[in-house]
Protein backbone atom coordinates (compact mmCIF):
# COMPACT_ATOMS: atom_id res chain seq x y z
CA UNK A 1 0.00 0.00 0.00
CA UNK A 2 1.43 3.40 -0.92
CA UNK A 3 2.07 5.51 2.14
CA UNK A 4 0.36 8.89 1.84
CA UNK A 5 -2.29 11.13 3.25
CA UNK A 6 -5.76 10.73 1.82
CA UNK A 7 -7.18 8.04 -0.40
CA UNK A 8 -8.84 9.26 -3.57
CA UNK A 9 -10.07 5.95 -4.93
CA UNK A 10 -10.47 2.64 -3.13
CA UNK A 11 -11.31 -0.68 -4.77
CA UNK A 12 -12.37 -3.53 -2.49
CA UNK A 13 -12.51 -7.13 -3.71
CA UNK A 14 -13.58 -6.25 -7.21
CA UNK A 15 -14.98 -9.05 -9.33
CA UNK A 16 -16.22 -8.32 -12.87
CA UNK A 17 -17.67 -10.59 -15.53
CA UNK A 18 -18.34 -10.34 -19.26
CA UNK A 19 -21.18 -12.82 -19.47
CA UNK A 20 -19.70 -15.98 -18.03
CA UNK A 21 -16.09 -14.87 -18.52
CA UNK A 22 -14.47 -13.57 -15.36
CA UNK A 23 -12.25 -10.65 -16.39
CA UNK A 24 -11.37 -9.38 -12.91
CA UNK A 25 -11.08 -11.97 -10.16
CA UNK A 26 -10.52 -10.28 -6.82
CA UNK A 27 -8.76 -6.96 -6.95
CA UNK A 28 -8.31 -4.46 -4.14
CA UNK A 29 -6.16 -1.37 -4.28
CA UNK A 30 -5.97 2.29 -3.36
CA UNK A 31 -5.14 5.39 -5.34
CA UNK A 32 -3.83 8.14 -3.06
CA UNK A 33 -4.96 11.71 -3.62
CA UNK A 34 -2.89 13.84 -6.00
CA UNK A 35 -0.60 10.99 -7.05
CA UNK A 36 0.02 9.25 -10.34
CA UNK A 37 -0.67 5.54 -10.15
CA UNK A 38 -0.09 3.07 -12.98
CA UNK A 39 -1.83 -0.19 -13.58
CA UNK A 40 0.31 -2.54 -15.65
CA UNK A 41 -0.21 -6.05 -16.95
CA UNK A 42 -0.26 -8.22 -20.04
CA UNK A 43 -2.95 -7.97 -22.74
CA UNK A 44 -6.23 -9.22 -21.43
CA UNK A 45 -5.23 -9.04 -17.78
CA UNK A 46 -8.26 -6.88 -16.99
CA UNK A 47 -6.84 -3.35 -16.83
CA UNK A 48 -9.38 -1.64 -19.07
CA UNK A 49 -12.17 -3.57 -17.40
CA UNK A 50 -11.16 -2.15 -14.02
CA UNK A 51 -11.18 1.40 -15.37
CA UNK A 52 -14.60 0.85 -16.94
CA UNK A 53 -15.90 -0.51 -13.65
CA UNK A 54 -14.70 2.62 -11.86
CA UNK A 55 -16.48 4.91 -14.31
CA UNK A 56 -19.69 2.91 -14.04
CA UNK A 57 -19.64 1.41 -17.53
CA UNK A 58 -19.27 -2.16 -16.19
CA UNK A 59 -21.43 -3.66 -13.47
CA UNK A 60 -19.62 -5.36 -10.64
CA UNK A 61 -20.31 -8.97 -9.79
CA UNK A 62 -18.93 -8.33 -6.33
CA UNK A 63 -16.95 -5.73 -4.46
CA UNK A 64 -17.06 -2.05 -3.68
CA UNK A 65 -15.65 1.12 -5.19
CA UNK A 66 -15.17 4.18 -3.02
CA UNK A 67 -14.34 7.62 -4.34
CA UNK A 68 -13.30 10.13 -1.70
CA UNK A 69 -15.84 9.47 1.03
CA UNK A 70 -18.65 7.96 -1.00
CA UNK A 71 -19.44 4.60 -2.47
CA UNK A 72 -19.86 4.84 -6.24
CA UNK A 73 -20.39 1.31 -7.52
CA UNK A 74 -23.88 0.91 -8.93
CA UNK A 75 -24.11 4.63 -9.75
CA UNK A 76 -24.72 5.72 -13.33
CA UNK A 77 -21.76 6.85 -15.45
CA UNK A 78 -23.27 10.31 -15.49
CA UNK A 79 -23.35 10.56 -11.68
CA UNK A 80 -19.80 9.31 -11.48
CA UNK A 81 -18.55 11.93 -13.93
CA UNK A 82 -20.35 14.58 -11.93
CA UNK A 83 -18.61 13.39 -8.78
CA UNK A 84 -15.32 14.10 -10.50
CA UNK A 85 -14.05 11.05 -12.37
CA UNK A 86 -13.31 11.43 -16.07
CA UNK A 87 -12.19 8.63 -18.35
CA UNK A 88 -9.96 8.83 -21.42
CA UNK A 89 -10.79 5.54 -23.12
CA UNK A 90 -8.29 3.42 -25.00
CA UNK A 91 -7.60 3.91 -28.69
CA UNK A 92 -8.13 7.64 -28.50
CA UNK A 93 -11.89 7.74 -28.82
CA UNK A 94 -13.12 10.99 -30.36
CA UNK A 95 -16.28 12.13 -32.13
CA UNK A 96 -14.63 12.00 -35.56
CA UNK A 97 -16.95 14.23 -37.59
CA UNK A 98 -17.38 16.87 -34.94
CA UNK A 99 -15.07 19.83 -34.68
CA UNK A 100 -12.41 20.07 -32.01
CA UNK A 101 -14.47 22.61 -30.09
CA UNK A 102 -17.64 20.49 -30.30
CA UNK A 103 -15.67 17.52 -29.00
CA UNK A 104 -14.65 19.64 -26.03
CA UNK A 105 -18.24 20.70 -25.40
CA UNK A 106 -19.38 17.08 -25.42
CA UNK A 107 -16.80 16.48 -22.70
CA UNK A 108 -18.82 18.82 -20.51
CA UNK A 109 -22.03 16.95 -21.32
CA UNK A 110 -22.71 15.79 -17.79
CA UNK A 111 -22.41 19.32 -16.37
CA UNK A 112 -26.00 20.25 -17.15
CA UNK A 113 -25.99 23.14 -14.71
CA UNK A 114 -23.02 24.90 -16.30
CA UNK A 115 -23.90 28.12 -18.12
CA UNK A 116 -22.67 28.92 -21.58
CA UNK A 117 -20.30 31.47 -20.12
CA UNK A 118 -18.76 28.97 -17.74
CA UNK A 119 -18.26 26.50 -20.55
CA UNK A 120 -16.59 29.16 -22.67
CA UNK A 121 -14.27 30.01 -19.81
CA UNK A 122 -13.40 26.34 -19.29
CA UNK A 123 -12.80 25.82 -22.99
CA UNK A 124 -10.47 28.81 -22.97
CA UNK A 125 -8.60 27.38 -19.99
CA UNK A 126 -8.20 24.04 -21.72
CA UNK A 127 -6.93 25.78 -24.87
CA UNK A 128 -4.25 27.47 -22.79
CA UNK A 129 -2.99 24.01 -22.05
CA UNK A 130 -3.29 22.87 -25.64
CA UNK A 131 -2.54 25.88 -27.85
CA UNK A 132 -2.41 23.78 -31.01
CA UNK A 133 -5.97 22.63 -30.38
CA UNK A 134 -7.05 26.25 -30.27
CA UNK A 135 -5.59 26.77 -33.73
CA UNK A 136 -7.45 23.70 -34.94
CA UNK A 137 -10.68 24.34 -33.08
CA UNK A 138 -12.74 24.39 -36.27
CA UNK A 139 -11.14 21.26 -37.77
CA UNK A 140 -12.89 17.93 -37.63
CA UNK A 141 -11.41 15.60 -35.05
CA UNK A 142 -10.82 12.95 -37.68
CA UNK A 143 -8.23 15.19 -39.38
CA UNK A 144 -5.96 15.40 -36.31
CA UNK A 145 -2.70 13.47 -36.06
CA UNK A 146 -2.29 10.77 -33.41
CA UNK A 147 -0.52 13.02 -30.94
CA UNK A 148 -3.02 15.84 -31.32
CA UNK A 149 -5.87 13.34 -31.16
CA UNK A 150 -4.59 12.18 -27.80
CA UNK A 151 -4.36 15.79 -26.66
CA UNK A 152 -7.96 16.29 -27.68
CA UNK A 153 -9.05 13.11 -25.91
CA UNK A 154 -7.41 14.34 -22.72
CA UNK A 155 -8.69 17.89 -23.17
CA UNK A 156 -12.19 16.51 -23.66
CA UNK A 157 -11.97 14.64 -20.37
CA UNK A 158 -10.72 17.78 -18.60
CA UNK A 159 -13.89 19.60 -19.64
CA UNK A 160 -15.71 17.49 -17.06
CA UNK A 161 -13.54 19.16 -14.37
CA UNK A 162 -12.30 15.88 -12.94
CA UNK A 163 -10.53 15.32 -9.65
CA UNK A 164 -9.53 11.86 -10.80
CA UNK A 165 -8.51 11.15 -14.37
CA UNK A 166 -8.57 7.58 -15.68
CA UNK A 167 -6.29 7.19 -18.69
CA UNK A 168 -6.29 4.02 -20.73
CA UNK A 169 -3.05 3.75 -22.71
CA UNK A 170 -2.54 7.45 -23.43
CA UNK A 171 0.80 6.75 -25.12
CA UNK A 172 -0.38 3.98 -27.42
CA UNK A 173 0.62 4.52 -31.04
CA UNK A 174 2.33 7.84 -30.42
CA UNK A 175 5.70 8.74 -31.95
CA UNK A 176 8.59 8.51 -29.45
CA UNK A 177 9.28 12.22 -29.80
CA UNK A 178 5.70 13.08 -28.78
CA UNK A 179 5.57 10.53 -25.96
CA UNK A 180 7.72 12.89 -23.85
CA UNK A 181 5.26 15.77 -24.46
CA UNK A 182 2.26 13.75 -23.38
CA UNK A 183 4.26 12.49 -20.39
CA UNK A 184 5.03 16.05 -19.40
CA UNK A 185 1.40 16.97 -19.81
CA UNK A 186 0.31 14.16 -17.48
CA UNK A 187 2.82 15.42 -14.95
CA UNK A 188 1.53 18.99 -15.27
CA UNK A 189 -2.05 17.94 -14.78
CA UNK A 190 -1.04 16.01 -11.71
CA UNK A 191 0.82 18.99 -10.31
CA UNK A 192 -2.33 21.02 -10.68
CA UNK A 193 -4.04 18.66 -8.28
CA UNK A 194 -5.59 15.99 -10.50
CA UNK A 195 -5.12 12.43 -9.31
CA UNK A 196 -4.23 10.07 -12.15
CA UNK A 197 -4.83 6.37 -12.57
CA UNK A 198 -3.39 5.19 -15.83
CA UNK A 199 -2.97 2.00 -17.76
CA UNK A 200 0.12 1.78 -19.96
CA UNK A 201 2.19 -0.67 -21.94
CA UNK A 202 5.04 1.82 -22.15
CA UNK A 203 6.92 0.52 -19.11
CA UNK A 204 9.76 3.02 -18.98
CA UNK A 205 7.39 6.00 -19.23
CA UNK A 206 5.04 4.71 -16.55
CA UNK A 207 7.93 3.91 -14.23
CA UNK A 208 9.20 7.44 -14.77
CA UNK A 209 5.86 9.17 -14.23
CA UNK A 210 4.24 7.14 -11.49
CA UNK A 211 4.37 7.42 -7.73
CA UNK A 212 3.07 3.89 -7.33
CA UNK A 213 2.62 0.87 -9.58
CA UNK A 214 0.26 -2.08 -9.52
CA UNK A 215 0.87 -5.07 -11.75
CA UNK A 216 -2.06 -7.22 -12.74
CA UNK A 217 -1.95 -10.83 -13.89
CA UNK A 218 -5.11 -12.42 -15.33
CA UNK A 219 -7.53 -10.55 -13.16
CA UNK A 220 -5.48 -10.50 -9.97
CA UNK A 221 -2.89 -8.20 -8.49
CA UNK A 222 0.54 -9.83 -8.77
CA UNK A 223 2.83 -7.24 -7.25
CA UNK A 224 2.95 -3.56 -6.32
CA UNK A 225 5.40 -0.94 -5.17
CA UNK A 226 7.12 2.35 -5.81
CA UNK A 227 8.79 2.32 -9.24
CA UNK A 228 12.34 2.54 -7.88
CA UNK A 229 11.79 -0.52 -5.66
CA UNK A 230 9.80 -2.50 -8.22
CA UNK A 231 12.44 -2.19 -10.89
CA UNK A 232 14.81 -4.10 -8.60
CA UNK A 233 12.52 -7.12 -8.19
CA UNK A 234 13.14 -10.32 -10.13
CA UNK A 235 9.48 -10.39 -11.25
CA UNK A 236 9.66 -7.06 -13.01
CA UNK A 237 13.15 -7.61 -14.35
CA UNK A 238 12.10 -10.87 -15.95
CA UNK A 239 8.66 -10.09 -17.29
CA UNK A 240 8.92 -6.40 -18.09
CA UNK A 241 12.42 -5.10 -18.39
CA UNK A 242 13.65 -8.11 -20.31
CA UNK A 243 16.89 -8.50 -18.33
Amino acid sequence: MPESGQTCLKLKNLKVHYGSLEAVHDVSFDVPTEKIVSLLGANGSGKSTILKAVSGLMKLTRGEIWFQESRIDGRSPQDIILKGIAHVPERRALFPHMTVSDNLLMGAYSRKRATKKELEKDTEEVYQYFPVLREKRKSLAITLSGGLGEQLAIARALMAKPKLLLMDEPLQGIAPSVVRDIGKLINDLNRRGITILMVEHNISMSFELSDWIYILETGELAIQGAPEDLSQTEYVKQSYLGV
Partner: protein
Amino acid sequence: MKRRNLLGKKVGIAAVIVAFGLLPVFTQSPYWMHVFILMWIYIIVTASLRFTITMGEWSFAHVPLMGMGGYASALLAMKLGLSFWVALPLAVLITAFIAVFVYLPCLPTTGTFFFFASYAFGEVMRLCWVRFKNPFGGPAGLLFIPAPGPIRIPGIPAIEFGPLSKIPYYYTVFVFMLLSLLILYRLEQSRLGRIAEAVKESNLLAQFVGIRVWRYKMVILLIGSAFAAIGGSLYAHYTTLIMPVDFYWGLGIYIIIYTVVGGTRHFGGPIVGVFLFVLLRELLRPIVMYVPLVYGLILAGTLVFLPEGLISLPEKISAWAMKKKIAAA
Protein backbone atom coordinates in the same frame (compact mmCIF):
# COMPACT_ATOMS: atom_id res chain seq x y z
CA MET B 1 -20.89 36.76 -46.97
CA LYS B 2 -22.21 33.95 -44.85
CA ARG B 3 -24.98 36.08 -43.41
CA ARG B 4 -26.11 37.07 -46.88
CA ASN B 5 -26.21 33.42 -47.87
CA LEU B 6 -28.36 32.67 -44.86
CA LEU B 7 -30.75 35.49 -45.68
CA GLY B 8 -30.91 34.30 -49.29
CA LYS B 9 -31.75 30.83 -48.07
CA LYS B 10 -34.54 32.11 -45.83
CA VAL B 11 -36.03 34.17 -48.64
CA GLY B 12 -35.80 31.16 -50.94
CA ILE B 13 -37.57 28.87 -48.48
CA ALA B 14 -40.29 31.48 -47.88
CA ALA B 15 -40.79 31.83 -51.63
CA VAL B 16 -41.19 28.08 -52.07
CA ILE B 17 -43.71 27.92 -49.21
CA VAL B 18 -45.74 30.81 -50.64
CA ALA B 19 -45.63 29.29 -54.14
CA PHE B 20 -47.00 25.94 -52.96
CA GLY B 21 -49.42 27.71 -50.66
CA LEU B 22 -50.86 29.42 -53.73
CA LEU B 23 -50.81 26.33 -55.92
CA PRO B 24 -54.58 25.69 -55.68
CA VAL B 25 -55.14 29.17 -57.04
CA PHE B 26 -53.53 28.11 -60.30
CA THR B 27 -54.61 24.53 -60.61
CA GLN B 28 -57.51 22.78 -58.98
CA SER B 29 -57.07 19.65 -61.02
CA PRO B 30 -57.92 16.78 -58.66
CA TYR B 31 -55.10 14.80 -60.22
CA TRP B 32 -52.37 17.29 -59.28
CA MET B 33 -53.97 18.04 -55.91
CA HIS B 34 -53.85 14.32 -55.18
CA VAL B 35 -50.20 14.06 -56.21
CA PHE B 36 -49.23 16.94 -53.96
CA ILE B 37 -51.31 15.83 -50.97
CA LEU B 38 -49.55 12.48 -51.02
CA MET B 39 -46.24 14.27 -51.53
CA TRP B 40 -46.72 16.34 -48.36
CA ILE B 41 -47.58 13.19 -46.43
CA TYR B 42 -44.47 11.41 -47.69
CA ILE B 43 -42.36 14.42 -46.76
CA ILE B 44 -43.57 14.14 -43.14
CA VAL B 45 -42.81 10.43 -43.09
CA THR B 46 -39.43 10.75 -44.82
CA ALA B 47 -38.20 13.75 -42.84
CA SER B 48 -39.08 11.97 -39.60
CA LEU B 49 -37.23 8.86 -40.77
CA ARG B 50 -34.16 11.01 -41.38
CA PHE B 51 -34.57 12.47 -37.91
CA THR B 52 -34.21 8.99 -36.43
CA ILE B 53 -31.22 8.32 -38.67
CA THR B 54 -29.37 11.24 -37.07
CA MET B 55 -28.60 8.96 -34.12
CA GLY B 56 -27.00 6.42 -36.41
CA GLU B 57 -29.55 3.61 -36.77
CA TRP B 58 -31.80 3.00 -39.77
CA SER B 59 -35.27 1.89 -38.77
CA PHE B 60 -37.29 -0.30 -41.07
CA ALA B 61 -40.28 -0.18 -38.74
CA HIS B 62 -40.98 3.42 -39.67
CA VAL B 63 -43.53 2.67 -42.39
CA PRO B 64 -45.43 0.06 -40.34
CA LEU B 65 -45.56 2.64 -37.54
CA MET B 66 -46.98 5.13 -40.03
CA GLY B 67 -49.61 2.44 -40.70
CA MET B 68 -50.21 2.09 -36.98
CA GLY B 69 -50.97 5.80 -36.84
CA GLY B 70 -53.44 5.34 -39.69
CA TYR B 71 -55.13 2.31 -38.14
CA ALA B 72 -55.32 3.87 -34.68
CA SER B 73 -56.76 7.10 -36.00
CA ALA B 74 -59.25 5.35 -38.30
CA LEU B 75 -60.44 2.98 -35.56
CA LEU B 76 -60.86 5.79 -33.06
CA ALA B 77 -63.02 7.59 -35.60
CA MET B 78 -64.99 4.52 -36.73
CA LYS B 79 -65.52 2.66 -33.45
CA LEU B 80 -65.63 5.53 -30.99
CA GLY B 81 -66.98 8.16 -33.32
CA LEU B 82 -64.19 10.59 -32.51
CA SER B 83 -63.50 13.45 -34.87
CA PHE B 84 -60.31 13.34 -36.92
CA TRP B 85 -59.07 16.38 -34.98
CA VAL B 86 -59.16 14.37 -31.75
CA ALA B 87 -58.26 11.02 -33.27
CA LEU B 88 -55.00 12.26 -34.79
CA PRO B 89 -53.32 13.37 -31.56
CA LEU B 90 -54.57 10.25 -29.77
CA ALA B 91 -53.27 8.07 -32.59
CA VAL B 92 -49.89 9.75 -32.26
CA LEU B 93 -49.76 8.87 -28.55
CA ILE B 94 -50.93 5.31 -29.16
CA THR B 95 -48.35 4.80 -31.90
CA ALA B 96 -45.54 6.16 -29.73
CA PHE B 97 -46.64 3.79 -26.98
CA ILE B 98 -46.64 0.79 -29.32
CA ALA B 99 -43.30 1.92 -30.76
CA VAL B 100 -41.76 1.39 -27.31
CA PHE B 101 -42.50 -2.33 -27.66
CA VAL B 102 -41.45 -2.45 -31.30
CA TYR B 103 -38.07 -0.85 -30.60
CA LEU B 104 -37.30 -2.25 -27.14
CA PRO B 105 -36.13 -5.60 -28.52
CA CYS B 106 -34.19 -3.84 -31.31
CA LEU B 107 -32.18 -1.49 -29.12
CA PRO B 108 -29.47 -3.89 -27.97
CA THR B 109 -28.46 -4.24 -31.63
CA THR B 110 -26.81 -1.76 -33.96
CA GLY B 111 -26.20 -1.41 -37.69
CA THR B 112 -27.50 -4.12 -39.98
CA PHE B 113 -28.87 -6.05 -37.03
CA PHE B 114 -30.93 -3.09 -35.90
CA PHE B 115 -32.23 -2.65 -39.43
CA PHE B 116 -33.41 -6.25 -39.70
CA ALA B 117 -34.66 -6.43 -36.13
CA SER B 118 -36.78 -3.34 -36.72
CA TYR B 119 -38.03 -4.90 -39.97
CA ALA B 120 -39.04 -8.04 -38.10
CA PHE B 121 -40.88 -6.30 -35.28
CA GLY B 122 -42.55 -3.84 -37.64
CA GLU B 123 -43.69 -6.77 -39.76
CA VAL B 124 -45.14 -8.55 -36.72
CA MET B 125 -47.31 -5.51 -36.14
CA ARG B 126 -48.39 -5.43 -39.78
CA LEU B 127 -49.24 -9.12 -39.72
CA CYS B 128 -51.49 -8.47 -36.73
CA TRP B 129 -53.62 -6.24 -38.96
CA VAL B 130 -53.81 -9.04 -41.53
CA ARG B 131 -54.57 -11.74 -38.99
CA PHE B 132 -57.12 -9.99 -36.77
CA LYS B 133 -60.20 -9.13 -38.79
CA ASN B 134 -61.67 -7.56 -35.72
CA PRO B 135 -60.89 -4.70 -35.38
CA PHE B 136 -58.32 -4.28 -38.19
CA GLY B 137 -60.38 -5.65 -41.05
CA GLY B 138 -57.88 -8.29 -42.16
CA PRO B 139 -56.20 -8.16 -45.58
CA ALA B 140 -59.01 -5.98 -46.96
CA GLY B 141 -58.30 -3.34 -44.34
CA LEU B 142 -60.62 -0.57 -43.23
CA LEU B 143 -63.16 1.07 -45.52
CA PHE B 144 -65.24 4.22 -45.13
CA ILE B 145 -62.89 6.00 -42.77
CA PRO B 146 -64.66 9.26 -41.98
CA ALA B 147 -63.29 12.47 -43.43
CA PRO B 148 -62.20 15.23 -41.03
CA GLY B 149 -65.06 17.26 -39.55
CA PRO B 150 -65.61 20.75 -40.93
CA ILE B 151 -63.41 23.61 -39.75
CA ARG B 152 -65.56 26.48 -38.50
CA ILE B 153 -64.01 29.91 -38.37
CA PRO B 154 -66.44 32.67 -37.40
CA GLY B 155 -67.16 35.10 -40.22
CA ILE B 156 -66.51 32.72 -43.13
CA PRO B 157 -68.44 29.69 -44.31
CA ALA B 158 -67.46 26.38 -42.70
CA ILE B 159 -64.72 24.50 -44.54
CA GLU B 160 -66.10 21.06 -45.40
CA PHE B 161 -64.01 17.99 -46.19
CA GLY B 162 -65.57 15.73 -48.76
CA PRO B 163 -65.34 14.19 -52.19
CA LEU B 164 -66.27 17.45 -53.89
CA SER B 165 -63.03 19.31 -53.40
CA LYS B 166 -59.50 18.36 -52.50
CA ILE B 167 -58.50 21.87 -51.56
CA PRO B 168 -59.34 21.64 -47.84
CA TYR B 169 -57.26 18.44 -47.70
CA TYR B 170 -54.46 20.13 -49.57
CA TYR B 171 -54.18 22.95 -47.06
CA THR B 172 -54.66 20.75 -44.01
CA VAL B 173 -51.90 18.38 -45.04
CA PHE B 174 -49.72 21.28 -46.16
CA VAL B 175 -49.97 22.95 -42.76
CA PHE B 176 -49.32 19.68 -40.94
CA MET B 177 -46.24 19.23 -43.08
CA LEU B 178 -44.89 22.72 -42.42
CA LEU B 179 -45.43 22.39 -38.67
CA SER B 180 -43.84 18.93 -38.61
CA LEU B 181 -40.80 20.16 -40.51
CA LEU B 182 -40.48 23.16 -38.24
CA ILE B 183 -40.59 21.02 -35.09
CA LEU B 184 -38.18 18.43 -36.49
CA TYR B 185 -35.80 21.17 -37.52
CA ARG B 186 -35.87 22.82 -34.12
CA LEU B 187 -35.33 19.45 -32.45
CA GLU B 188 -32.31 18.79 -34.61
CA GLN B 189 -30.77 22.14 -33.67
CA SER B 190 -31.45 21.53 -29.99
CA ARG B 191 -29.44 19.71 -27.36
CA LEU B 192 -31.22 16.51 -28.40
CA GLY B 193 -29.81 16.93 -31.90
CA ARG B 194 -26.29 17.21 -30.56
CA ILE B 195 -26.78 14.12 -28.43
CA ALA B 196 -28.05 12.25 -31.48
CA GLU B 197 -24.96 13.28 -33.41
CA ALA B 198 -22.65 12.19 -30.60
CA VAL B 199 -24.37 8.81 -30.36
CA LYS B 200 -24.06 8.35 -34.11
CA GLU B 201 -20.42 9.41 -34.14
CA SER B 202 -19.40 7.05 -31.38
CA ASN B 203 -21.83 4.94 -29.44
CA LEU B 204 -19.07 4.01 -27.04
CA LEU B 205 -17.55 7.43 -26.41
CA ALA B 206 -21.06 8.80 -25.91
CA GLN B 207 -21.32 6.47 -22.91
CA PHE B 208 -17.94 7.61 -21.65
CA VAL B 209 -19.05 11.24 -21.55
CA GLY B 210 -22.15 10.23 -19.63
CA ILE B 211 -24.87 10.07 -22.29
CA ARG B 212 -27.53 7.46 -21.50
CA VAL B 213 -27.34 6.10 -25.00
CA TRP B 214 -30.28 3.70 -24.82
CA ARG B 215 -32.64 6.22 -23.38
CA TYR B 216 -31.84 8.85 -25.98
CA LYS B 217 -32.01 6.39 -28.86
CA MET B 218 -35.48 5.44 -27.64
CA VAL B 219 -36.56 9.06 -27.26
CA ILE B 220 -35.46 9.83 -30.81
CA LEU B 221 -37.16 6.73 -32.23
CA LEU B 222 -40.39 7.61 -30.44
CA ILE B 223 -40.36 11.17 -31.76
CA GLY B 224 -39.81 9.75 -35.24
CA SER B 225 -42.71 7.32 -34.73
CA ALA B 226 -44.97 10.12 -33.58
CA PHE B 227 -44.42 11.98 -36.84
CA ALA B 228 -44.82 8.80 -38.86
CA ALA B 229 -48.19 8.44 -37.12
CA ILE B 230 -49.20 11.95 -38.15
CA GLY B 231 -48.47 10.96 -41.74
CA GLY B 232 -50.45 7.73 -41.33
CA SER B 233 -53.45 9.43 -39.81
CA LEU B 234 -53.57 12.07 -42.56
CA TYR B 235 -53.26 9.30 -45.14
CA ALA B 236 -56.10 7.26 -43.63
CA HIS B 237 -58.57 10.11 -43.37
CA TYR B 238 -57.68 11.44 -46.78
CA THR B 239 -57.88 8.19 -48.76
CA THR B 240 -60.70 6.86 -46.49
CA LEU B 241 -59.41 3.31 -46.85
CA ILE B 242 -56.26 1.61 -45.64
CA MET B 243 -54.98 -1.92 -46.04
CA PRO B 244 -52.01 -3.74 -44.53
CA VAL B 245 -50.43 -3.88 -47.97
CA ASP B 246 -50.28 -0.06 -48.06
CA PHE B 247 -47.51 -0.26 -45.47
CA TYR B 248 -45.51 -3.22 -46.76
CA TRP B 249 -41.71 -3.31 -46.90
CA GLY B 250 -41.57 -1.90 -50.45
CA LEU B 251 -42.77 1.50 -49.26
CA GLY B 252 -40.08 1.34 -46.58
CA ILE B 253 -37.49 0.82 -49.29
CA TYR B 254 -38.85 3.73 -51.33
CA ILE B 255 -38.74 6.04 -48.33
CA ILE B 256 -35.14 5.04 -47.73
CA ILE B 257 -34.30 5.68 -51.39
CA TYR B 258 -35.89 9.15 -51.19
CA THR B 259 -33.80 9.89 -48.10
CA VAL B 260 -30.51 8.62 -49.47
CA VAL B 261 -30.86 10.19 -52.91
CA GLY B 262 -31.92 13.50 -51.37
CA GLY B 263 -29.10 13.35 -48.85
CA THR B 264 -29.12 12.16 -45.25
CA ARG B 265 -26.71 14.71 -43.86
CA HIS B 266 -28.91 17.71 -44.63
CA PHE B 267 -32.32 18.47 -43.20
CA GLY B 268 -33.58 19.35 -46.68
CA GLY B 269 -32.30 16.12 -48.23
CA PRO B 270 -35.40 13.96 -47.86
CA ILE B 271 -37.63 16.87 -48.89
CA VAL B 272 -35.76 17.21 -52.17
CA GLY B 273 -35.75 13.43 -52.53
CA VAL B 274 -39.51 13.03 -52.10
CA PHE B 275 -40.25 15.96 -54.37
CA LEU B 276 -38.18 14.64 -57.25
CA PHE B 277 -39.25 11.04 -56.96
CA VAL B 278 -42.96 11.76 -56.65
CA LEU B 279 -42.85 13.94 -59.75
CA LEU B 280 -40.67 11.42 -61.53
CA ARG B 281 -43.17 8.71 -60.76
CA GLU B 282 -45.90 10.76 -62.42
CA LEU B 283 -43.71 11.24 -65.49
CA LEU B 284 -43.01 7.53 -65.63
CA ARG B 285 -46.67 6.55 -65.54
CA PRO B 286 -46.65 5.30 -69.16
CA ILE B 287 -43.82 2.89 -68.35
CA VAL B 288 -44.79 2.10 -64.78
CA MET B 289 -43.27 -1.38 -64.84
CA TYR B 290 -39.82 0.14 -65.19
CA VAL B 291 -40.17 2.39 -62.15
CA PRO B 292 -38.17 0.15 -59.78
CA LEU B 293 -35.42 -0.13 -62.38
CA VAL B 294 -35.19 3.63 -62.84
CA TYR B 295 -35.21 4.17 -59.06
CA GLY B 296 -32.44 1.63 -58.68
CA LEU B 297 -30.32 3.31 -61.34
CA ILE B 298 -30.81 6.72 -59.75
CA LEU B 299 -29.93 5.32 -56.33
CA ALA B 300 -26.77 3.68 -57.67
CA GLY B 301 -25.77 6.80 -59.60
CA THR B 302 -26.24 9.02 -56.55
CA LEU B 303 -24.27 6.72 -54.29
CA VAL B 304 -21.37 6.73 -56.72
CA PHE B 305 -21.32 10.34 -57.91
CA LEU B 306 -23.05 12.30 -55.14
CA PRO B 307 -22.73 10.31 -51.93
CA GLU B 308 -24.05 13.25 -49.92
CA GLY B 309 -27.20 13.33 -52.02
CA LEU B 310 -28.79 15.66 -54.53
CA ILE B 311 -29.00 18.43 -51.97
CA SER B 312 -25.22 18.71 -52.04
CA LEU B 313 -25.29 19.36 -55.81
CA PRO B 314 -25.28 23.20 -55.67
CA GLU B 315 -22.38 23.07 -53.22
CA LYS B 316 -20.48 20.69 -55.49
CA ILE B 317 -21.10 22.87 -58.51
CA SER B 318 -19.96 26.06 -56.80
CA ALA B 319 -16.84 24.29 -55.51
CA TRP B 320 -16.16 23.10 -59.04
CA ALA B 321 -16.70 26.60 -60.48
CA MET B 322 -14.39 28.06 -57.85
CA LYS B 323 -11.69 25.57 -58.81
CA LYS B 324 -12.04 26.53 -62.47
CA LYS B 325 -11.79 30.19 -61.59
CA ILE B 326 -8.64 29.61 -59.57
CA ALA B 327 -7.17 27.50 -62.35
CA ALA B 328 -7.93 30.22 -64.90
CA ALA B 329 -6.39 32.99 -62.80
